């Protein structure tokens, strides 16, 4: 499918070939992540972060600057017209008149899709509630592709809050586009994927296993995608502490894992990965965070200039 003018709402709007196209352009962009390349001069990207973000917002901003373009940024709701009661629809109509593309993060689910219906300019979803975060999945998958040369046919584990986590949902769908050998969905019972996700995996014929047991499964894995488990999700604090303890990645848990296991995390982490893991060969999460720049550069280039 053509990239020019395309909206990015869900990772499932893309095929594995589309994603490979983004990854190839991203690897070309690696040469320019610190020097820049003048491809999008005079183009303006609107960054509308109705919900706070640091890394997603800054990395989109950095990517746009490195491509020679400019950004209109607002973050939070306090100092904008939103606080005065302007609707999201009207804000989008206004920004659509100013910018060549719009990046939106909003706590309301479906906000990006709604914005895309209104705006003529392409809309990129940078997170809508606990729904989707497609560009995060793109850079997660790029990290695997860059290290392993492939994504399909691997044993991939996804750990943490699979019910409310938008990064984990987008990663699960993104990895599924490449047909993993097995997809292990590892979570406490109360944070398992929603039936909506299970049905889509069924439709896609994905071989997936839902389990609570990290200790045994981790030895099977080529990739472990770790996400945060939030305290607020648990009515009982003792239950939270127990779950948190059983899913913490530390050196002793990593004995007996595959030599080339990759551990990913969308960051920020709290204590789900112990700092002692940072120095191991398995830690790819800082590299993953850096990959945000070439991947978002590639996406902006493709959407604004075309293939």
């Amino acid at each position, binding site marked *: 499918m053509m990239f020019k003018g395309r909206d990015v709402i869900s990772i499932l709007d893309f095929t594995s070939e589309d994603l490979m196209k983004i990854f190839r352009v991203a690897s070309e962009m690696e040469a320019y992540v610190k020097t820049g390349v003048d491809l999008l001069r005079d183009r303006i990207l609107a960054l509308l972060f109705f919900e706070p973000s640091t890394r997603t917002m800054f990395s989109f901003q950095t990517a746009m600057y490195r491509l020679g373009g400019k950004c209109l940024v607002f973050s939070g709701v306090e100092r904008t017209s939103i606080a005065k009661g302007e*609707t999201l629809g009207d804000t989008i109509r206004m920004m659509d008149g100013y910018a060549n593309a719009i990046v939106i993060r909003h706590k309301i689910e*479906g906000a990006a899709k709604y914005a895309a219906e209104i705006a003529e300019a392409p809309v990129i979803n940078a997170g809508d509630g606990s729904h989707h975060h497609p560009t995060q999945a793109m850079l997660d998958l790029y990290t695997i592709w860059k290290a392993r040369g492939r994504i399909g046919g691997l044993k991939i584990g996804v750990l943490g809050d699979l019910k409310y986590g938008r990064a984990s949902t987008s990663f699960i769908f993104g990895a599924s586009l490449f047909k993993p050998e097995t997809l292990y969905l590892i979570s406490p019972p109360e944070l398992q994927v929603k039936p909506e996700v299970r049905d889509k995996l069924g439709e896609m014929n994905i071989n997936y296993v839902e389990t609570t047991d990290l200790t045994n499964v981790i030895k099977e894995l080529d990739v472990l995608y770790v996400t945060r488990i939030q305290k607020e999700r648990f009515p009982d604090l003792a239950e939270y502490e127990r779950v948190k303890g059983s899913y913490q990645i530390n050196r002793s848990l990593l004995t007996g894992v595959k030599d080339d296991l990759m551990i990913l995390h969308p960051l920020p982490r709290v204590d789900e990965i112990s700092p002692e893991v940072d120095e191991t060969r398995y830690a790819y999460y800082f590299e993953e965070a850096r990959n945000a720049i070439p991947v978002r550069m590639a996406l902006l280039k493709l959407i604004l200039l075309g293939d």
Partner: protein
Amino acid sequence: MGEGLLVRKIRFGTVIDHIPAGNALNVVRILGINGDEGIRLAIIMNTESSKLGRKDIVKIEGRELTMDELNIIALIAPTATINIIRDYEVYRKEKVSVPDYIEGIIRCSNPSCISNQGRETAKPKFRVVSKEPLTLECIYCERYTSREEIVKQFISHMGV
């Protein structure tokens, strides 16, 4: 009691029969009839039915509804049958069936969905992923809404 009094024949219009007992008012609501349109309407509740034990019937006089308008009833009353009446005779008989796509009328079950934010103009839209058990998928947030949740929405409107 004289059943004839309750089910007096209508000359022209639409009879919605075989509504599960107790659901007639929900059916009227889902059709968007508020009572102030001037439509002549008869609601018969908890009458005997050989098929359902007890059933409700709604008679709409002077208006032939189209199946596109009527199929929405299948969301809450899947057993309903439609009789189009012309000159006191049944001109056409049909069963309602759940449409593949639904716009407006019902709300997404997810309170955090853009279609539930009063001031935004995002109209609720659904893809029907399963007709039995009924499962609707919101076009915006992709959350499922079930028959129980739809029925609840119409009950919560009653008496308003």
